[in-house]
Structure formats: structure tokens, C-alpha cells
């Protein structure tokens, strides 16, 4: 049975015909191209790079950016649905698309020059070029404002020094968006963004080994040692920590939908397994304990769907706030973590196999829970929004 989604509240009636067409197309593509190979990729610890050209051709990357740069020009709800369906396949595939679209193409579009846009966006949209986003450092994760990667002005450009950690697509990338301190360390306003070709002298990337989560994804450490870039590498409209945070708001928006995708994949698997697995002479779905698991999952998914959709409508109306995105990322990734764990348990011993999806999603979601602002950090963002008192300072 191909995946048919989860739609208990007739959410489809709230989507336009195009939004549904986009969702159905990505769903079918994932069913045909991701599902058959992803378990193996995960075990091998390999990102299925062979899928990238097709993802580009179909328009998955930066799909909500304008058509004049080779993008699909979709609204944000359709963009969210793409993320949902990709993450239904695997968080690693969705992470790749999120980084490429929201963390590389978006800053180039938002903060770059017209030349940056023309040079990079069409190639990044088509998948001919791959990008990565370097913000996190070994000693600055939740607090990127403290970063110690520096960019110093030279006669004809900039000299960048530092190290970035946990960088998705880092080893595959042709171009890196590097955030560096141009002023005093600790000065949030001095942080600026640079478009750095990864073949620049002094730039090295190293795959981070030993991951037990997001294994079908490239996660790398970047080292920039006296990397000299031209004057034009600076994205002129980037200014201060709020610029990378604006990118994160874009990506987190997509993740709020992505979490639903992972949760729906698990729920689907749980329902099917509960009907087919017979124990004590009846399907385990006939026992109250398993029914409670399924009822909880369905309830949380349905709430998360309504939340994501309204967030998308606000984003399309231009009124969405970063705090609203925090709430959705926090809630929907958390519900995905719960759904994956409960499904894993419902599946018994089979639940630990790569042949089933639950444990892969369960392990993946731990990364998603941590990156793009940990669950805790979003709690504190909301706490500040509610009380007006920052827990950070």
C-alpha cells in the first residue's frame, strides 16, 4: 500500500488544488525514489546524492523563491508540504533540501547582490551546485553570537579564519555561506555573511564520523585557515546576528512541516502493523494499550497539521513572527519524536530493524530536536515572548 497521508480532519479541504498537486507529486516521488533505498543508505551512512539532480529538475530546492532565479515560486504552504513529504521519506533528505533552499539560497536571495543571485540561485535550484551553511562552531552552538570565526578586511577582500561544526552537506558543497565576526568577538552586530567557494585555498571539510542519527546525510566539520576571498564575497545586506537568525526562521518553518512528515510515516506504519500482527489470537491493534498509542499519535498529528497550516497562511500573509515559528518547530518536532518512539515500541522486535521506518525516524528526530534551535532554546524564546524577560542574558 503506498503512503496516503494522515488526514483525520479533512485538511485537504483547506488546501488549494495546486497545493494538493504539489504534495501528491512529492509524495509519489518519495514513494518511488526514496523509500526503496533509504533504509540501506541509512545503514551505510550514505547520503543518496544520486537523487539531487532529479530533486532539482522537479523544483524541490528553494521552491518558494521567485521564478526569475530558476525557482518554482510556490507559496509557503506548498513549500511546507514539500518538506513534510521529504521528511516522510527521511529527515536527511529534508535536511538537504532545507539547507539548500532556506539556508543557502534564501540568504543569497535576501542578503546577496544581484550578481550573487544570478550566479548561484539557478545552479543551486537545479542541483548542479550544492551549498552549505556554516554558523555553528565547536564552542558556540546555542549561542552563535559568541562565535570566534573572524573575517578581517584586507586591501582587496577578506581573510577568514575559524572552524565550523555540524555542517550539513559540508563535504559535498560547492559553496558555503560562512558567518563570521568582522568586529570585536561577542559583538552581535559585527556578524556578517560571506559566499565562500569551497575550492578556495585554506578551506577544508571533513565528514563527521560516528553519527547514530541522520545517517543518510552529510554532516561535516569545516576549517577555514587564512581563506582569502574577494570584496564581493560579502553579502552586503547581511548585518548582525539577526541575519543568520532570519535564515533559521525560514528553515525552522520548513521543519515544523517536516516533523509532521516523519510522524505521519510512523503513524502509518504503526496502524498497519497493529492490524496485521496477531498476538494472543488477535491483532495487537485490538488491545487498548495499542489503541491508546494510536489515538495519541493521531491526535497530536492532527493538532500539528492545523498548527503548521495556519503558520503557513500567516507566512504567506507576511505576518508570521519568529516566535510563532518557534512554537511550531518545538511542538511538531516533539510530536514526531513521540510518534517515532511509540511506533518503535508498538512494532516490538521488528521495530529495531532498518527494514521498518520507526527507529530510523526516531534516531533522526533526535538531530532535528537539537538543530535549528534546540527544543530548550525554543522554550526559552517562547518564555521571553510570554514574560518579556529573557532567560539568556
Amino acid at each position, binding site marked *: 500500500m503506498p503512503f496516503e497521508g494522515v488526514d483525520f480532519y479533512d485538511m485537504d479541504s483547506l488546501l488549494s*488544488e*495546486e497545493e494538493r*498537486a504539489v504534495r501528491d*507529486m512529492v509524495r*509519489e516521488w518519495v514513494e518511488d525514489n526514496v523509500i526503496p533505498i533509504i533504509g540501506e543508505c541509512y545503514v551505510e551512512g550514505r547520503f543518496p546524492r544520486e537523487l539531487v539532480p532529479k530533486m532539482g529538475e522537479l*523544483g524541490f530546492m528553494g521552491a518558494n523563491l521567485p521564478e526569475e532565479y530558476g525557482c*518554482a*515560486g510556490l507559496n509557503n504552504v*506548498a513549500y511546507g508540504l514539500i518538506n513534510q513529504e521529504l521528511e516522510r521519506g527521511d529527515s536527511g533528505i529534508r535536511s538537504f533540501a532545507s539547507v539548500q533552499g532556506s539556508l543557502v539560497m534564501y540568504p543569497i536571495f535576501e542578503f546577496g547582490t544581484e550578481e550573487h543571485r544570478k550566479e548561484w540561485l539557478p545552479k543551486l535550484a537545479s542541483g548542479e551546485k550544492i551549498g552549505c551553511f556554516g554558523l555553528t562552531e565547536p564552542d558556540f552552538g546555542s549561542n552563535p553570537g559568541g562565535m570566534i570565526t573572524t573575517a578581517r578586511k584586507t586591501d582587496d577582500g577578506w581573510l577568514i579564519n575559524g572552524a565550523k561544526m555540524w555542517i550539513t552537506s559540508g563535504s559535498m558543497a560547492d559553496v558555503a555561506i560562512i558567518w563570521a565576526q568582522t568586529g570585536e568577538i561577542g559583538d552581535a552586530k559585527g556578524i556578517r555573511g560571506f559566499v565562500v567557494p569551497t575550492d578556495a585555498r585554506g578551506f577544508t571539510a571533513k565528514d563527521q564520523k560516528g553519527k547514530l542519527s541522520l545517517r543518510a546525510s552529510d554532516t561535516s566539520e569545516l576549517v577555514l585557515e587564512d581563506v582569502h576571498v574577494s570584496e564581493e564575497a560579502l553579502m552586503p545586506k547581511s548585518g548582525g546576528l539577526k541575519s543568520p537568525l532570519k535564515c533559521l526562521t525560514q528553515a525552522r518553518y520548513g521543519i515544523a512541516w517536516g516533523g509532521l512528515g516523519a510522524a505521519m510515516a510512523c503513524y502509518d506504519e504503526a496502524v498497519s502493523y497493529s492490524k496485521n500482527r496477531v498476538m494472543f489470537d488477535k491483532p495487537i491493534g485490538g488491545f487498548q494499550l495499542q489503541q491508546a498509542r494510536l489515538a495519541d499519535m493521531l491526535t497530536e498529528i492532527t493538532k500539528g497539521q492545523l498548527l503548521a497550516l495556519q503558520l503557513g497562511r500567516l507566512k504567506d500573509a507576511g505576518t508570521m513572527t519568529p516566535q510563532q515559528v518557534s512554537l511550531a518547530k518545538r511542538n511538531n518536532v516533539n510530536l514526531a519524536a513521540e510518534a517515532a518512539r511509540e511506533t518503535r515500541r508498538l512494532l516490538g522486535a521488528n521495530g529495531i530493524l532498518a527494514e521498518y521506518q520507526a527507529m530510523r525516524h526516531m534516531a533522526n528526530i533526535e538531530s532535528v530536536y537539537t538543530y535549528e534551535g534546540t527544543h530548550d532554546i525554543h522554550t526559552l524564546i517562547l518564555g521571553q515572548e510570554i514574560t518579556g524577560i529573557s532567560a539568556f542574558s
Partner: protein
Amino acid sequence: MGDQLKIAVLVKRVPDSEARIKIDSGSGGIDPASVKFVVNPYDEYAVEEALALKEKAGEGEVVVISLGADSSQETLRSALAMGADRGVLLKTENAPTDPFAAAQILAAELEDGGFDLILSGKLAIDDYHHATGIIVAELLGLPGVSAASGLTVESGKGSAEREIEGGVEVVDFQLPAVVTCDKGLNEPRYPALKGIMMAKKKPLEVKDVTPADSGVEVVGLDLPPARPEGRIVGEGVDGVAPLIAALQQEAKVL
């Protein structure tokens, strides 16, 4: 006609083959709320083939035509999203279940269209008639080839391959012609996101049609009877004799 290829593709909205169908107690037909509708899969081969032929020719037009209720606009837009140039909906809330009546309406629309080639699926998965496309050919007085799994078109002529028992039949024909498409002809493309966005800007003409009285009347629909539960007749070697007996006497398949 040069390199320009003008191709019409007949497409039908059908229930997804994976759908769990419910029968509407009022109308006696399929309850449309219970199922997801898709483009008839064989028609997708026809659309793909038309697009590929047009791309190969370098120039031309692919027109998708559907007979059905207003909801068939969505079916046409799926084909437009794949790359067809424009759509025509022959709109009626009482689309005939009789392939002859359907073919009459389609043929009337196609007659003066100036098409070099008319493609359709070899059958629609809702009624399995295998008939409409071929009746259209007959009504238009054109060569008709059914169930093509290979197709080439060049300088006014076509050649189609048909899978037959133990071999492949090659049929050469003059254009214009009608060809119905089988599985294996091609791998239909996914509609790219840009295609989906463009589809709503492409022309989609809606024409009201009144089907002639159909020679076929649907008396009723019934779901297949629920399958009786399986039964274990014995285990291991001991099971062989009772199994054979059951297959002979109860199932009567041996």
C-alpha cells in the same frame, strides 16, 4: 505538415486503484467522497508519449481532452502540469458509461481539430472497456492501433508495436491516426513544480455537451463479497492430503 505535430490526448478521471470504494446508497454509483481520483494511468502513458513526440519534433501542440463532470478539470490540469499546452473539458454531469456514446462526443470534438495524432489509454481502469479510443478512430474514419507499447512517428507516417502472445506485432500506418497506449510504452514524468504552477495559467476551455441516449444502463453496483477467512487444514506433511481434498472438493480448482 512538416515537423509540427499536433496531438490530442484523451484523458479520463478515474478512482485510484488503491482506493477503498464505497457505494453511494442514494445514486447507486461510487460514492465520490470515499475515493481519491487520479488520471487514468494508461492515459498518463498517452500524455507522456505525446509530450515526448512533441519534444522530439521540436514544435507542435499537445491538447488534452476529457469528457466528464466539472471535477475533470483537475484531471486536465494534471496533464497540463506534465507539460500539455491546453485543455478542453467536454462537460456533462452524466458522462456516458457506454463507450460508444462517449466516443461520439469525443469524435465530434476531434473532427475539425486538425490533429496529426490522437492518443488515449488502451483502457480506463474504472470500466475496462478497451473500446473508446478505437471507436473514435472508427467514427473519424482514421487508422486505429490499440494497445501500443512502442511508437514512432516520422514524416506523416507512424509505426507502433503491440505486445501479442509470444511476440511483438509491428503496425505501420498513415497519419492522422488514433493510437491507444499500453503499459511499457514509456515512464510518465512527474509534473515539475514549475509545471504545476504553470498549469493554472494555461488555457482550459469548458464546453457543455449532451450525451446521446446511452445504449447501456447501469442497473447497480455491488462490492465483491467479503473473502471468507482462511483456514489451516493441517500442518507439515499431514496437511497435504486434506489440502488437496479441500482444493478439489471445496474450491474446485484442481
